Every structure is written in C-alpha cells, then in structure tokens.
C-alpha cells in the first residue's frame, strides 16, 4: 500500500462515488422509463425502492452524491485558484466537517421511517 495523504483518499472516493452514481443514474433512467408503460408497471418498479432494506442504500446514494458534489467543489476551487493548493489539507478537513454537518441531519431524516412505529 502507498500511504497517500488526504488528497489520495479524496480522489479515490471521488472516483468511486462518481462511477457509483453513474451506475445508479443508468438504473434510474431505466426505472423512470417504466412511466411509458403505465402506472402499474411504474409502481411495480418503484416497489423495489419501498423495501425497508433499500433505505440504507438510498442513504448511501445520497451520501455518495453529496460527497462527490462536495469534493467536486473543492476540485473547482483548486482549479480556479492554483494558490489554494497550499491549503489543500485545510480545505480537505473543512470539507470533511461540512460533510458531517450536512449528512447527519439528512441521515436522520431519511432513516426515520425505518424506526417509525
């Protein structure tokens, strides 16, 4: 293993989330296209999403998109201001903190139905 810094971790995650979200996007398009076959077909497809075990996956999807978007923002900052590379570690930790701040409430809201009586 190469012991890379935060930059390497950020990049690996960005890449993984990018591909994962792309795969989901393709699925999403297929499932949405069921609209053309009418309500039964569509609602049947959507029933998949309504399984309880899907909730965590849904959260994972949101988490992935939010991560990808957040890190994408960092990348954009680094592209716009080459000088910002000097503080990339700071950017990384600020980003990580912001990520936690956003994702904790989102997770609570999204997972609540699971625990609802």
């Amino acid at each position: 293993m190469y012991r890379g810094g935060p930059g390497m971790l950020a990049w690996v995650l960005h890449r993984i989330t990018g591909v994962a979200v792309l795969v989901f996007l393709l699925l999403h398009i297929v499932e949405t296209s069921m609209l053309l076959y009418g309500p039964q077909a569509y609602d049947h497809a959507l029933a998949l999403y309504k399984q309880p075990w899907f909730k965590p996956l849904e959260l994972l999807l949101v988490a992935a998109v939010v991560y990808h978007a957040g890190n994408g923002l960092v990348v954009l900052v680094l592209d716009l201001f080459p000088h910002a590379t000097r503080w990339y570690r700071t950017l990384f930790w600020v980003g990580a903190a912001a990520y936690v701040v956003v994702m904790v409430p989102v997770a609570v809201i999204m997972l609540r139905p699971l625990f609802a009586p």
Partner: protein
Amino acid sequence: MKVHVRIKRFNPEKDRRPYWADYEVPTDPFDRVLDVLHYIKWNLDGTLALRRSCAHGICGSDAMLINGRNRLACKVLVKDLGNRITVEPLRGLPVIKDLVVDMEPFFAKYRHVMPWLVNDEPPPARERLQSPEERARIDDTTKCILCAVCTTACPIFWGNGEFLGPAALVAAHRFIFDSRDRAAAERLALLAERSGAFKCRTVFNCTDACPQGIEITKAIQELKRAIVLSRA
C-alpha cells in the same frame, strides 16, 4: 538501537519474482536510512543493489518506497520511522534489481517537454535582464532534482505509464514561466495532449512527497490554467 528492516529483493539472474528479505541492523537514531542500507550492503549481504551518490538529498539517486511513502533514503532518519523499516523499489517503473528501477521511461518524459531554454534572439553582450519578481515566478520549479519521487507516487502514473507525470510537468513549468523563454506555446501544446497536464487529478501525492518541497500540484494547476486561457 536495533531496527528490523524488510527489503523487497529481486535479482533478475536468480529470482523469478520479488521476495521479502529481513535484516536486523544496529543503528543510531540520527542514522539515515541510506546508512542502514549501506550497513546491510557492506556487512550482511553485498549483493544488495541500490543507487546513491551524494548522501544528502541533492542528487536524487536514492528515491525508494520507504514505509509506504516515496522518499530519498538519505533524507529520512531512522528516528522518524521507528524500529520497523520497510523498503521497496519505486512503483510504476520496471525493476532492474532490488531497489534499482529503470529510469529511462522517466527521463524520456522529461525530454519530451523540451526542458531547455529556447530564445533564439541574439543575446545582449551582458546578461538578459530579468527582474527579481520574474525570477521568483520560477524559483520553486527550478529546484527539481529529477529524483522521480513525485511521478512514481502518482496513482495516475501507476495506472497509466503514458502520463507525462508531475516531474515532467514541473520541468515544463520551469521554462514556460521563465520570462526569457520563447517556446511556451509549443510546450503548452504538448501538455494539452491526452497524456499531459489534464491527466492530473489533483491527488497531491507528488506534492506531499517531493523532497525539495516543490509545490508541484500548484505548478500543474497553473499549467492547466495557462493551457485553457491560451485556447479559450
């Protein structure tokens, strides 16, 4: 203080694949890893092969993977590693023997970016003038000692040997931003290629590892920006 050293060994004349060898070496905390390797080479096993010359971090010979990071063996002290030291050859370049890798692909990339000052205007009788500010613009990238630490720490390079790699980009930067140079456009065109600057995904392994402390990623970002601005 005794340290335990693991070295990834490979002798093309004997071994079919690399293997790990273990050594116990008496050291002083202020010893360099290079001293440790020399101890092994000169006392335990003379077949160990590694490049080195200056022994104080300025010639760039002894880049290797030490405890999971690319470093110069002569620039890292035992006290900063603890008593277990793992040494491997650089990633992404073919291994010739033990810690010696084939540097040709690396230098070929360096040569590719025209790493020489181009200015065919007749020179003045004395020096070409350059303000301290213009000089400062390239100060960082002139420090490169071509040790290959950065390029072989870049995951994009591991995956794709075509990538010019940070070191070649640093060399290009050094000339593109030199106020006396006249070939920036030509170099930028080379870097705009598929295997050029845009392959860099701001991973920062290069910057983190550079023994000269060069802000490599910053330089590469400046190059990307220069390419885009020159085209758009």
